């Protein structure tokens, strides 16, 4: 409690303060501008430990920029981004430090190491030594091998382990990337459009996969356009528009919201 | 695995070795080694120095043809072996080695820059070859295996400065050069010489620029400023090759006329002027040991034959060409005197050989392996030629070790027995520089 206060001396209203200490992720008044275009506009929301949250919104609503802000790729012009009950100010850290804290991110465009095998992709992602010099002499332990086996089971790519990452199908790459996130064992997963370009069956499988991950204690934030998928997830939904939260609630509540309909369908 | 390893080593090792060694060693089997004497030509045909050196390659080929037409040497035809060291200094050493070791040439004509000569020097010493070096250079060297047919600084720079002092009344001097060893040495010698003539230190401005310097605005403006101090000013330019054109263009642009501030250059000859519109440069000077415009029958005959050979009736001639010609003729004469091409016999035989130069006199190879030369001062004309305005009355002997330099004032060179030394110290009475 005291740390929070020293970290956040500025006057914050009571509710926000409660949220800050309890939330895993805490965004308040985050604003980002690119060459005059306001990508995020005083965006505020929180994610609780163990929560799975879906974020929807039209193109340009600021979903990816929001993720960039959380993961340290973009520095907000204004506003706060805190992690782990307000103990860590994410705006002061870079990507690598944030990742080490336990925030994993899957990109919109599936990004796996294409000239590595699927196995090596997971090996690289697996939680463990990250410094350069020790890794020259690193040996794989049995424990690590077992963990990789486990993840392979989860993401159902066991039989593809010898193939190159670049040779996988689009859907398989998405899964591999999720698997790589799992291997990092993060507290919070940020998943950007995981089912883009997937078949219906694959979409359903992915939803199940994410639910399973969430059930294992990882917090998850999913950005997605696919409403079927969001419905499959069955979690709290937040709609972004022009860089701030337009509506929040269950999918039904949000999709019934008039402003949401207006934004999505146009006037 | 170890099986595979040894097997691979056995097979592949042999294959590669055999292939490479054969390919390199056997790529040019001397066809008729018995009937010809090989002459190596080591001039850059590509890269930055091709601009100057290509002509010298052609000159050697011309001389070889002339000599063969006249019956060859020792009853054998000469055969030129041309290689391209591509303006790359280590490649000079490699090609020199190839010429001497593989092609077994009797003599090499080559090099332009000092660094290329320095690069091949150890090779010629090791393999006991003969190199004729045809370009004016900084001196401070005398090697058993090298014959220097270009000018040493005292055969070019000092007479030029004398001319300017006497004829133009120059009191203030800009020594502008490219930052490498030739300009550094020349300027150092000139500085000492000028001071000995009573020129004050503040009346000497020294400026060095990098190779290929192309933006001369500031420096030319500085020269202009330096020259407006109320005393007659001249520029002594040791600016090298590529940088000269933009330099002269800038002089012309800023309206510095020869009548205001004359520029005397030691590295600008007919070839270099061929690339410049010389109308704004009329009256600027150059000091050489030969000009194409020298009006003597030998020169006229040479130019005519050269143009016929190169099939271009506008092709110019220049000083390093003359130096190549002199060197070539000296070598032929020495070989005929010695009756063999064996360097151990030819090298001593070369000392004392005198051949006609192209300015109507004779040049002789001195015991320091440098030749005697007349010094000519020319003014640039509007057709890119030089008007010879002054000529030293006699021949000048090269000072390979400059008496004006601290490190070399006690050194002399004499390759005759019994001295046989390139850097004999007259103070200590020993061979081997200042030490020992």
């Amino acid at each position, binding site marked *: 409690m005291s740390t929070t206060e020293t970290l956040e001396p500025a006057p914050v209203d009571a509710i926000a303060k409660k949220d800050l200490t309890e939330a895993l992720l805490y965004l308040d008044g985050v604003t980002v501008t690119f060459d005059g275009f306001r990508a995020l506009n005083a965006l505020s929301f929180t994610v609780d430990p163990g929560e799975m949250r879906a974020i929807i919104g039209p193109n340009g609503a600021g979903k990816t920029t929001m993720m960039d802000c959380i993961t340290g790729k973009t520095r907000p012009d204004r506003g706060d981004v805190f992690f782990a009950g307000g103990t860590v100010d994410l705006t002061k850290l870079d990507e690598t430090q944030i990742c080490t804290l336990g925030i994993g991110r899957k990109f919109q465009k599936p990004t796996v190491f294409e000239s590595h095998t699927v196995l090596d992709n997971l090996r690289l992602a697996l939680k463990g030594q990250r410094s350069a010099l020790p890794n020259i002499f690193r040996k794989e332990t049995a424990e690590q091998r077992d963990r990789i086996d486990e993840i392979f089971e989860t993401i159902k790519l066991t039989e593809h382990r010898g193939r190159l990452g670049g040779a996988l199908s689009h859907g398989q790459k998405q899964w591999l990337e999720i698997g790589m996130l799992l291997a990092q064992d993060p507290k919070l997963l940020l998943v950007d459009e995981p089912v883009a370009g997937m078949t219906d069956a694959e979409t359903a499988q992915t939803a199940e996969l994410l639910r399973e991950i969430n059930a294992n204690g990882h917090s998850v934030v999913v950005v997605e356009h696919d409403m079927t998928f969001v419905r499959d997830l069955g979690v709290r939904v937040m709609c972004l528009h022009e860089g701030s939260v337009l509506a929040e609630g269950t999918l039904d509540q949000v999709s019934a919201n008039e402003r949401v309909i207006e934004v999505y369908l146009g006037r | 695995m170890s099986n595979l390893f040894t097997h691979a080593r056995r097979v592949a090792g042999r294959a590669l070795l055999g292939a490479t060694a054969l390919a390199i060693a056997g790529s040019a089997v001397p066809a008729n080694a018995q009937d010809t004497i090989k002459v190596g030509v080591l001039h850059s045909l590509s890269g930055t120095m091709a601009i100057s050196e*290509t002509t010298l390659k052609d000159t050697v080929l011309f001389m070889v043809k002339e000599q063969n037409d006249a019956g060859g040497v020792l009853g054998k035809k000469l055969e030129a072996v041309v290689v391209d060291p591509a303006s790359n200094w280590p490649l000079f050493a490699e090609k020199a080695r190839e010429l001497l070791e593989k092609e077994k040439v009797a003599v090499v004509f080559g090099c332009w820059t000092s660094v290329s000569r320095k690069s091949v020097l150890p090779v010629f010493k090791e393999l006991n070859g003969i190199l004729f070096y045809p370009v004016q250079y900084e001196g401070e060297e005398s090697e058993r295996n090298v014959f220097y047919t270009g000018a040493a600084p005292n055969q070019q720079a000092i007479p030029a400065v004398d001319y300017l002092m006497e004829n133009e009344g120059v009191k203030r001097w800009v020594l502008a050069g490219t930052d490498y060893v030739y300009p550094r040495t020349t300027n150092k010698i000139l500085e000492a010489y000028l001071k000995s003539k009573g020129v004050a230190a503040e009346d000497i401005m020294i400026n060095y620029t990098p190779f290929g310097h192309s933006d001369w605005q500031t420096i030319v403006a500085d020269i202009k400023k330096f020259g407006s101090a109320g005393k007659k000013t001249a520029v002594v330019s040791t600016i090298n090759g590529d940088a000269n*054109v933009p330099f002269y263009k800038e002089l012309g*642009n800023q309206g510095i006329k020869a*009548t205001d501030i004359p520029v005397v250059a030691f590295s600008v000859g007919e070839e270099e002027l061929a690339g410049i519109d010389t109308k704004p440069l009329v009256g600027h000077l150059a000091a050489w040991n030969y000009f194409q415009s020298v009006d003597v029958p030998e020169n006229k005959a040479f130019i005519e034959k050269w143009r016929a050979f190169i099939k271009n009736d506008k092709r110019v001639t220049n000083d390093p060409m003359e130096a190549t010609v002199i060197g070539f003729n000296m070598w032929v004469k020495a070989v005929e005197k010695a009756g063999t091409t064996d360097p151990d016999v030819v090298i001593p035989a070369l000392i004392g050989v005198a051949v006609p130069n192209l300015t109507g006199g004779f040049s002789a190879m001195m015991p320091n392996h440098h030749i005697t030369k007349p010094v000519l001062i020319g003014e640039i004309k509007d057709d890119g030629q030089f008007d010879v305005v002054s000529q030293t009355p006699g021949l000048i002997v090269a000072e390979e070790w400059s008496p004006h330099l601290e490190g070399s004032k006690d050194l002399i060179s004499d390759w005759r027995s019994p001295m046989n030394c390139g850097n004999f110290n007259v103070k200590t009475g020993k061979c081997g520089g200042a030490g020992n």
Partner: protein
Amino acid sequence: MTTIARFRSFCCALAFLLSVASFCLPGADRAQAQDLSGPLGQIATDNYGNTEAALGELALSGSPAAAGIVSALADGNLVFSPSTRQVFIRNAAGALLDPVTLQPVADAPAVKPVRVNNRIRRAIEAANGALSLVSPDAAKRLDAAQAVGRSRDEAALPALETALAKETDPRVKTAMTLARASIVIAKEGITPAERIAAVELVGAEGNQDALAILRSVPDSAAPEVKQAAADAIAGIERNLAIWGAAQNVWYGVSLGSVLLLAAIGLAITFGVMGVINMAHGEMVMLGAYTTFVVQELIRTYNPALFDASLLIAIPVAFLFTGLIGVLIERTVIRFLYGRALETLLATWGISLIIQQAIRTAFGPTNREVGAPSWMSGTFDLGHLAITYGRLWIVIFAFLVFVALLGVLRLTRIGLEMRAVTQNRRMAASMGIRTNWVDAMTFGLGSGIAGIAGVALSQIDNVSPNLGQSYIIDSFLVVVFGGVGNLWGTLVGAMSLGIANKLLEPYAGAVLGKIALLVIVILFIQKRPRGLFALKGRAIES
């Protein structure tokens, strides 16, 4: 008009002028003047000192024939026979004329031209100056006054004073007063007051020449004169230091415009298309050689057009190098899109081939590209010395920049180029012929490099190595300015040029350049995508 050409016309006018002059020159005895055998005999010795002395005598002789002799000497048409020591004038047809009577000589002996060196040229100039002071043409008098002032020849003082007394034109009068002051200032045996007046007059000029004149105050002069001169010198030097800074900025702008020209084509092929175009320098070189060929053709077929040769060369170079560019794009580059680094290798290979092709075709030596008369000479703007050649290059660079900007912004092909480079597939699906656009874009970049070559032929070597010397600077400019941004290239070129020239006086040419490279390297750390980086998230992915 070039100085030489001006000088020529000067001499031609002399014949007429001299007859007038001979009446005005004090002490010139006309009866005695007709006998020129003395100076002519001296000339025939072909010794510079004698010739110079003879010139002085000729100028003062007042003989109408003297002008013709001086003019012939300046043009190299004064000849002498080494055997008989006779002097003749050779006319345009090659016939020998008697120098005084101008009648053809019957049995002409073998002759040699009388040699002229800088010393003789100066003497000729001084003689001309003294003689032209009384020209009826005010402009010529002005020139002459300035020439006399520059020569500071005491011998001209009487003539100058006579001319000054008669002068009515205020501008010429000022110039003559100044010229007189320039001579008087160093003269022995004048009153301190007179000398101080001269010092003040000269000091008011405030330029480099004035400095030189002020420094010629003799040591024997009165202390107050020396003090006045020293004050004037200090004042001028302070003033000139400020102008010197401005001059350096101008040099920087001029260097910057050269960099801009060299880099702007690369801003298209590299900046817009992403081809690491190592053959860019060779395109510049081809442009310079095109200029050479155009000038050769003009010299051969229509020398009158020579002054327009550069204007003709510009479109020719653009088309030729543009065509070569299209050829390269169609045969090599188009297979390499999306593989930027491989374009480096291929274009490096192409650059070697082009260099060697030019070396084979034109030889390895420099080729002469002449400067048209409107690019020669210099003028003063305040105390800024600006050369016409550099000024035109600056203007030209900006014109090219504006034109290119216009093409990209305003034309259909420009729009298509931007569309294709931003999103090839989308552009293709909208019916843009991407192949054609690629070829045109590369052609445009190459063509502009060719135009740059036309300009650079005026200040640099036209040799096969020309391109090599610009390629590194060009890449540096484009990268420094920000890839893909023409304005960045402009600002990059100008800031590098000016920074270079401001550093040069302090650090020297080499250290200045090194310092600049280090600054650029450090700058890129600060702004990893150059001065004018495009922002936004699209860049990263």
